[in-house]
């Protein structure tokens, strides 16, 4: 631990093991299952203004653009499969709600011309990534949204590990694709002046430092949650700030990027785990991006009502569709909310908000020892944005503190307070 350990309680082994439900076993077979319906949706919480490129009823090829950003028309949202556009739902102000697609069998896949200098020239590469529909797979910090088309980050963190409960092991999706991953990493290097970090779990290295290339820093990450979360790693490796954005990308997507550079076609499928206490047995599937979550768990649920969440049991939210970055579906038993207490008791108990926090070892473990946990939580609870930002809140988004909420069961939720802080900071930083 050393001196740093005394300061922060840091350590690779900090974290918690959650026994939520059975996860897919480490060598479970990967079943190919493309759902009949899929949708193009933005990142959760984001509602970009778009221009629709494919009308309802039109047939599109896999990888063909269906929408593009209004303020930056180069950035496209693409169909994850050959499909017929079933329904376009826009929110007020031409904001993207969802574009529902019905699968068409035997359709084509779009192949883009790959310019020769794409792997070395930032401008060419980002144009290719915009038009191939890769951009929504990137998340920037601070604030956790899709980056602007012209943005160049100070660092890129590539996650080849995922410690969330029930998450699929990213190594499975990367088996046999080491070359594509290395090519993708090399290309990402062109997009940033800073370092590219490859985070991988101890004991299951995807790439050795030599294979990853000279300019990629390989980081070994502890096994427990939340060590394998992008936010905790960004906080540790290269803290994000308003004028120093950091991107994080999943390693499987980087391997897809490598394939795009080699063949001109961006793969549109990924490994997804479907698990939870309402599943008879967990599944490991290969399905398209934006797949219908009901279609993925169909036929495998226990009787009774259940909640289908896109994301992990900790930070997932009820959704019909997998988001552009989701790699797991959690199917949880829908427990009825606890019966209401007598109004008099509620009136006596409910006003004490935010609920007091008591420091305990569980709380420190829930933050992975990445930052002074109580100081951060107190700053968030009190709305002391300055202190929270000093402690690195801009590197985090909701999913990074979801475990804290799970552990302390506080009210209001810490994740909501963090989002409120990020929104305030974003409004303040806006030109």
């Amino acid at each position, binding site marked *: 631990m050393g001196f740093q350990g005394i*300061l922060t309680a840091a350590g690779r082994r900090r974290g918690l093991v959650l026994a939520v439900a059975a996860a897919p076993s480490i060598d479970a077979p990967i079943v190919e299952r493309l759902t009949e319906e899929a949708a193009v949706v933005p990142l959760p919480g984001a509602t970009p203004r778009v221009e629709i490129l494919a009308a309802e009823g039109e047939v599109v090829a896999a990888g063909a653009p269906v929408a593009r950003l209004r303020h930056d028309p180069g950035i496209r949202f693409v169909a994850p499969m050959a499909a017929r556009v079933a329904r376009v739902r826009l929110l007020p102000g031409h904001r993207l709600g969802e574009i529902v697609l019905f699968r068409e069998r035997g359709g084509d896949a779009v192949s883009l011309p790959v310019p020769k200098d794409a792997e070395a020239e930032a401008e060419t590469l980002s144009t290719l990534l915009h038009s191939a529909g890769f951009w929504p797979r990137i998340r920037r910090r601070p604030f956790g949204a899709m980056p602007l088309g012209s943005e160049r980050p100070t660092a890129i963190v590539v996650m080849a590990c995922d410690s969330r409960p029930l998450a699929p092991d990213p190594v499975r999706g990367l088996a046999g694709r080491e070359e594509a991953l290395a090519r993708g990493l090399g290309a990402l290097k062109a997009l940033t002046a800073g370092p590219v970090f490859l985070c991988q779990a101890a004991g299951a290295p995807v790439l050795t430092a030599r294979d990853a290339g000279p300019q990629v820093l390989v980081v070994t990450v502890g096994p427990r949650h939340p060590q394998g979360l992008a936010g905790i790693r960004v906080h540790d490796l290269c*803290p994000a700030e308003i004028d120093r954005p950091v991107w994080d990308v999943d390693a499987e997507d980087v391997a897809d990027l490598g394939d795009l550079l080699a063949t001109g076609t961006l793969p549109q499928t990924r490994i997804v785990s479907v698990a939870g206490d309402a599943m008879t047995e967990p599944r490991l599937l290969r399905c398209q991006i934006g797949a219908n979550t009901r279609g993925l768990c169909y036929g495998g649920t226990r009787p009774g009502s259940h909640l289908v969440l896109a994301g992990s049991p900790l930070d997932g939210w009820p959704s019909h569709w997998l988001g552009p970055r989701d790699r797991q579906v959690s199917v949880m038993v829908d427990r009825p909310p606890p019966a209401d207490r007598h109004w008099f008791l509620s009136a*006596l*108990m409910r006003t004490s908000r935010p609920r007091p*926090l008591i420091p*305990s070892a569980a709380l420190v473990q829930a933050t992975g020892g990445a930052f002074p946990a109580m100081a951060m939580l107190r700053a968030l609870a009190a709305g002391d944005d300055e202190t929270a930002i000093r402690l690195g809140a801009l590197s985090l988004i909701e999913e990074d503190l979801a475990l804290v909420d*799970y552990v302390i069961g506080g009210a209001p939720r810490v994740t909501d307070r963090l989002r409120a802080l990020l929104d305030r900071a974003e409004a303040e930083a806006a030109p």
Partner: protein
Amino acid sequence: MTRGLWDRETVALFLIAALMPLALAWLWAGGAEAAARLAAALVISGGWNLVFMLARAQPPSLGGAITALAVAMLAPEEIGLARLALGISFGTVFGELVFGGWGRNVVNPATVTLAFLGFGFPAAPWPDFVPPVAWAAIPAALIGIGAGVMPFGVIAGSALAGAVALAAGLPVAPVVPVGGLVLVLLVADPVSSPTTPLGRWLGGAVYGALAALFAAGWGGAAPVQICVAAALLASLAAPLLDEIAIGLWVMRRRRRHGQG
């Protein structure tokens, strides 16, 4: 979506479980008189929690029971029920409840109570403890650290300071048993002790050093009086120590990450 259980009352329950060896040893040694004192402290502390629930909608907490136990064990003897009630009322209300209840307090309410009684009624004799009670502080600390509700750094830091004082030949030996009890009951309280790892080591060391200093230089003071005074000052220093630890952490990070 799912919720865990490490909320305030769970921590309070684990703290009570940790203090059980101590409480049982003390009750066994003290007999009916000790039990009556504990019952009185529980009733008064619980009563004020009830008043604040009805008047201010602050949920009562099991943390009040920990305060009651600490006060019953450490309060001066032969002061009578009325003075005890006055002291507990002052400590509970002004040390804890006016800040919003257990978890929002700045100092430990039991420490405030004991300091109040000590200053208010200096003639009352402070209690002595038989060796089994003092030894019971060790299992209490072990359970508390094991369950993660007592800060390890505080206990280790003060043990270190005590060991240094003993090795330096200061006359601290008579204070050590009581020092351990006060450490477990008052100083290792997760709420009012520092929250950062470095702050906790420093906080424990400050408590140990102050206790050693008072033992060496405060003629005629009882061991409990010495330790309570040290605990009060150490808990007042806690925010400063946290601030120092966080400042060091931020500075180190800034050096590592440039602007960071």
